[in-house]
């Protein structure tokens, strides 16, 4: 497909949606203005025009799949025969699944915590120095990069050459310069997970940083100055004023990163493809979507396990939403 063709299709695709809204609404405007009695009728047609495309997409791509995935998890690999809890029993006894669950838990424990921590510390540091905004830009930059791009960047850092050869990977070069043996970092079980998590922390710290920076601006200057005049140390101020003030923000960032980490796929897929015991649920699921022609039952079970992880967050969001509606 040549370039012109490609961009013609792109243009057409976008135009189609604009035309839909414009034509349907213009027709309605034209007929609606003729008579006032139709006002209610016109309004309900308008609602349909406004929400139909989004609702159809929402239904096809989110609502229907959620229920279909739940149904498929009780069916065989082709989705034809009901097999009860067979797929769930398989999952519980599958060593790959157990390994993935453990890894996922490790990711969930370490990445959000460290990203939030680094974000908070750096936001505070950057707040006090004149070149803070430049520093923030640099630390925030990995947020713009794809996980695969970040994977290449870090694979280059972890690159391994045999002992005696010149190391072109930064980490091994440092290790060797201190007189240690070079290591193939990504193939050392258990620890390789940590090296993969480092990439995610490198990316997500920027997210935490910018949100904390915005929140820090909300702390009244008078409070901080009063504390300083009273002789409080910077550490004391950090722990007794800033942290309590940011409690809500910390929680928000922590959940935000948790949601992202729960469905982590790209980094592991690009770096190790789940080998050397680095697999997580999303990778195992992708694998089962295609392994042996695909097994929709097992794949669905894995998707549901990921979903279960977000249900507490989902419930909490809905609860907060209802509280707001009441006000």
């Amino acid at each position, binding site marked *: 497909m040549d*370039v012109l063709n490609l961009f013609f299709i792109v243009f057409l*695709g976008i135009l189609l949606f604009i035309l839909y809204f414009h034509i349907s609404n213009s027709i*309605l405007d034209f007929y609606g203005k003729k008579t006032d009695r139709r006002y209610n009728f016109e309004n309900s047609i308008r609602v349909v025009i406004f*929400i139909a495309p989004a609702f159809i997409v929402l239904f096809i*791509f989110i609502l229907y799949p*959620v229920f279909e*995935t739940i149904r498929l998890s009780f069916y065989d690999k082709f989705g034809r025969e009901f097999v009860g809890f067979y797929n769930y029993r398989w999952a519980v006894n599958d060593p790959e699944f157990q390994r993935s669950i453990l890894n996922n838990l490790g990711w969930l424990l370490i990445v959000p915590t460290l990203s939030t921590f680094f974000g908070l510390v750096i936001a505070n540091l950057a707040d006090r120095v004149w070149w803070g905004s430049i520093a923030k830009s640099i630390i925030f*930059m990995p947020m713009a990069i794809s996980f695969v791009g970040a994977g290449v960047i870090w694979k280059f850092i972890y690159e391994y050459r045999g002992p005696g050869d010149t190391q072109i990977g930064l980490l091994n070069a440092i290790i060797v310069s201190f007189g240690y043996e070079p290591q193939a970092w990504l193939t050392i079980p258990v620890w390789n997970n940590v090296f993969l998590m480092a990439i995610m922390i490198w990316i997500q710290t920027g997210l935490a940083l910018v949100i904390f920076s915005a929140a820090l601006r909300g702390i009244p200057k008078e409070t901080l100055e009063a504390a300083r005049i009273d002789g409080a140390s910077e550490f004391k101020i950090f722990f007794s004023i800033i942290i309590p003030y940011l409690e809500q923000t910390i929680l928000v960032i922590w959940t935000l990163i948790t949601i992202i980490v729960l469905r982590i796929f790209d980094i592991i897929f690009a770096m190790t493809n789940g080998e050397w015991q680095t697999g997580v649920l999303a990778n195992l699921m*992708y694998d089962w979507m295609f392994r042996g022609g695909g097994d929709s039952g097992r794949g669905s079970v894995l998707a549901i396990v990921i979903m279960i992880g977000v249900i507490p967050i989902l419930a909490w969001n*809905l609860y907060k939403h209802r509280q707001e509606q009441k006000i």
Partner: protein
Amino acid sequence: MKKFQISSFLSQLLLLFFVILWIIPTFGLFISSLRDKDLLAISGWWTSLTTTKVNEIYRMSGMTEQIFEDGFFVVRGSLFEDNSGKKIETFGITSKNINEFVVGEIASFKDNSQVTVNEVGEYIWKSEKEFTKKKGKRLFITALSPPSFTFDNYKEVLFKEGIGQAFLNTTAVALPSTLIPLIICSFFAYALTWMKFFGRDTLLAVIIASLVVPLQMSLIPILTIYNDFGALFGVAAKSYPGVWMAHTGFGLASTTFLLRNFIKSLPIEMMEAAKVDGASHYDIFLRIILPLSIPAFASIFILQFLWCWNDLLVGLVFLDQVPSEIILTAKLKELLGSRGENWEILTTGAFVSMTVPLFIFFALQRYFIRGLVAGSVKG
């Protein structure tokens, strides 16, 4: 006061440490993408920033270049290309002793021919007998090489490795996948905020719940739908429109949520006034909401665009992995597998894939941050 200055100094130092730690990986990738591919394979990128000692092997020209001069057969030539900037320190004529001679000295081969090399790599090779071999002999040199960079890797990657095509494909995926949700969600968000209809609150709750539903819940059923669609109509649903709609679906909840929060913050009086004047909802949307929402659109556009540009999973599942459809991230992953040792291709390819996000990042950082912060406050 003095204590405060010390802590300020420590803050700066600590922050500097973080900044260096964070920038080094990307910086290394960027430098590497500009290095000569042979050097890249044998030395760390950090050595390329200063003058370094390199050991290299060159072959002199053979019989075709010889001239007869003052009773000798002479071959003259230059080891380096013009302006290489390398300075030779020592050279040798056997692999066993590559530092045998200081530059300018005369070395004798077994066949009694003699060679000398000057600092910039020009050699003179003399012999009493006529040279009879097509290839010249080898010279081993040790030279000081200044930092040197090249765009060769970019040429190779863009045109030979298919990254250029993948770049176009990603653009063709990301643009509609960003604009379509923006269009349909702005109407949706308007309806959810300013129109009264049955089930509105339920729909809003569904949107909020959908915000956190992982992509994985949708993959299998949608892939099945796409396959059935293809079988039914004879057209492959795994194609550009298919992937646009998938991205639209997965970005719909967050786009709607952010837009609704924004539209809700607009003053209701304006809309009431317009309504009294006989404006329809479409008029209000077009004349009032749309112009006011430009900053919000910019933020959401950036978030969704970066998401689509950087996505791997959706492009992997809903597009065929053929040259005309493969996206940048999938191509990079493929290269990681097939060209895992060719770091010049990987680093350059990765950097090409990062150009657009980095441009957006630096040019529109304000909107990017605003979108992220707005999205996080509740979500």
